[in-house]
């Protein structure tokens, strides 16, 4: 059987700008796939193409076994979509929106009221179901949006930045929900995010997108170990910077870092830190601050793009 999401050379340009530049994707059934990248990397454009909302300017994509351009309606029957910003009509109540969604997906009236009740319970909105969405908090809106995308029990679920702008508690609650969905129903989840932690927590496999191109792909752990050595960062005064850099470069390859800070991939691993400290002390360099980090997805991102994601350490 064909994978639920297959894309080949998928591209989309807006004028001269290549928002998505010839990407290949393959997500297998029951997988949670994370699409990680900074703002403007092309994540949403890719999702809009995969969900039939935007026509590709090149390449092709099959979702749930059907071509997104040739059979958009069939694809739409099989996917659930929660788009960025949880854009929901604020004047309507959660219940009304769920019922509307049931009609839009052709669910019979009798089963849909049961379904709506189940879904509201699932996302913890039973009490708020008859309140207008305008009165909901950000987290409640996202959960309702998630419920809306589930009314027809989709085979593939697309979540475009599901937690952007949420507070940490709401974020964790939503992660829990996505995990449960995936485990209970075996729904394949395609999730875009600009948060490293989110990709790390939720996704079994991730693709890092930057400037419309996929720059890395694999499971978070394999990607991290591919970057290799842990990152050692030290802060020194501006005067010491050149000599410290010379010393540090003996112990590993330099990585991108902030001003007055030097970062290397420590080849000898964590035990090797003593040697570096001694060597710096021998050269008379005063160390202001030291950090040692096991590789993170941020390191993977930095390794691939030469830049740090917002919120990542540098």
């Amino acid at each position, binding site marked *: 059987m064909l994978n639920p999401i297959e894309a080949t050379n998928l591209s989309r340009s807006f004028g001269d700008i290549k928002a998505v530049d010839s990407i290949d994707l393959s997500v297998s059934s029951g997988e949670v796939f994370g699409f990680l990248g900074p703002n403007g990397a092309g994540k949403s454009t890719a999702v*809009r193409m995969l*969900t*039939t*909302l*935007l*026509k590709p300017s090149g390449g092709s994509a099959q979702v*749930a*076994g*059907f071509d997104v351009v040739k*059979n958009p*309606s*069939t694809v*739409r*029957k099989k*996917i659930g*979509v929660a*788009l*960025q*910003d949880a*854009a*929901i*009509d604020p*004047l*309507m109540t959660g219940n*009304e929106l769920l*019922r*509307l*969604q049931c*009609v*839009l*997906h*052709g669910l019979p009236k009798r089963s849909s009221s049961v379904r709506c009740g189940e879904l509201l319970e699932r996302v913890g909105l039973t009490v708020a179901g008859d309140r*207008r969405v305008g009165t909901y908090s950000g987290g409640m809106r996202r959960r309702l949006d998630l419920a*809306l995308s589930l009314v027809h029990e989709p085979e593939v679920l697309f979540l475009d930045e599901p937690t952007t702008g949420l507070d940490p508690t709401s974020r964790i609650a939503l992660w829990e929900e996505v995990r449960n969905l995936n485990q209970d129903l075996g729904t394949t989840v395609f999730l875009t995010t600009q948060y490293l932690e989110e990709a790390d927590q939720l996704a079994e496999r991730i693709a890092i997108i930057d400037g419309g191109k996929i720059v890395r792909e694999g499971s978070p752990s394999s990607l991290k170990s591919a970057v290799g050595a842990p990152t050692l960062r030290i802060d020194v005064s501006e005067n010491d910077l050149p000599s410290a850099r010379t010393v540090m470069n003996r112990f590993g390859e330099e990585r991108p870092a902030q001003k007055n800070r030097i970062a290397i991939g420590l080849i000898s691993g964590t035990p090797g830190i003593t040697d570096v400290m001694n060597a710096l002390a021998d050269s008379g360099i005063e160390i202001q601050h030291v950090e040692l980090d096991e590789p993170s997805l941020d390191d993977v991102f930095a390794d691939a793009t030469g830049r740090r994601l917002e919120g990542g350490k540098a």
Partner: protein
Amino acid sequence: MSSGNAPHVPSLAVVFAGIHRGLIRLQRIPSLMLPAVLMPVFFVVAFSGSFASIVELEGYETDKAVNWMTAWAVMQGSAFSGMGAGGLAGTDLENGFFDRLRVAPTRPMALIGGLVGYCVCRALIPITAVLIVAFAFLGADMPGGALGIAMVYLSGIGMAVVMSFLVLGIVFTFKTLKSLAIAQIIMFSSMFLSVGQAPIQAIEGWLHHVAAINPITNVIRMCRQGFLGEVTWSITQPGLIALFGMMVGTGIWARIRYKKVDA
């Protein structure tokens, strides 16, 4: 895999859901209706009052201005109600909810039909309000009887459909609420360049020719006939043909522009 299913969900249910949603919103912000009701009511009062003596001229076929101007106000109210479709679609496009509608496996015409149906329901309110004011306070006559009233509602509803399609096409093109201003200019121009306020015999110069070929002229005549005399097939038929033609034309326009939304 259940690929044997029809690719679309039943459209009629989607149309009714769309109408239902529009009416729910209307009930929650009733002030949306205020201009759409007050404007045509003011029109029937103001036009009947300002141009009270205009009916002395040849061609009006009535001795009361209100008998002439009520149909004009009804048409304005219906057309203005049609703007509501653009207002709702524009709001949805601006806040992103339209994507949620679009990503459902429904026929585009079913979504459009829901918006248009909502406007038809809306249009009934100003039409009725204008009729009440015209009969109760301005002394309008209705020699055409019940059939004449039916003609008023029929042409009003038809006009609301045509204007809904028209404005939806414009909003789908520009994807902003601001583009409603363009729609309003087109709406007012096409309405004014007709026999809305004066009979064709009284209109001179270039406007005579424009009003004569403007299909809205036929619809207004159909709407107005019951106020002036018996309802006749010879006036009703051109009105129905004009409405049908305009519905098909503007419907195709709206459907074509809908495709532009994902561009």
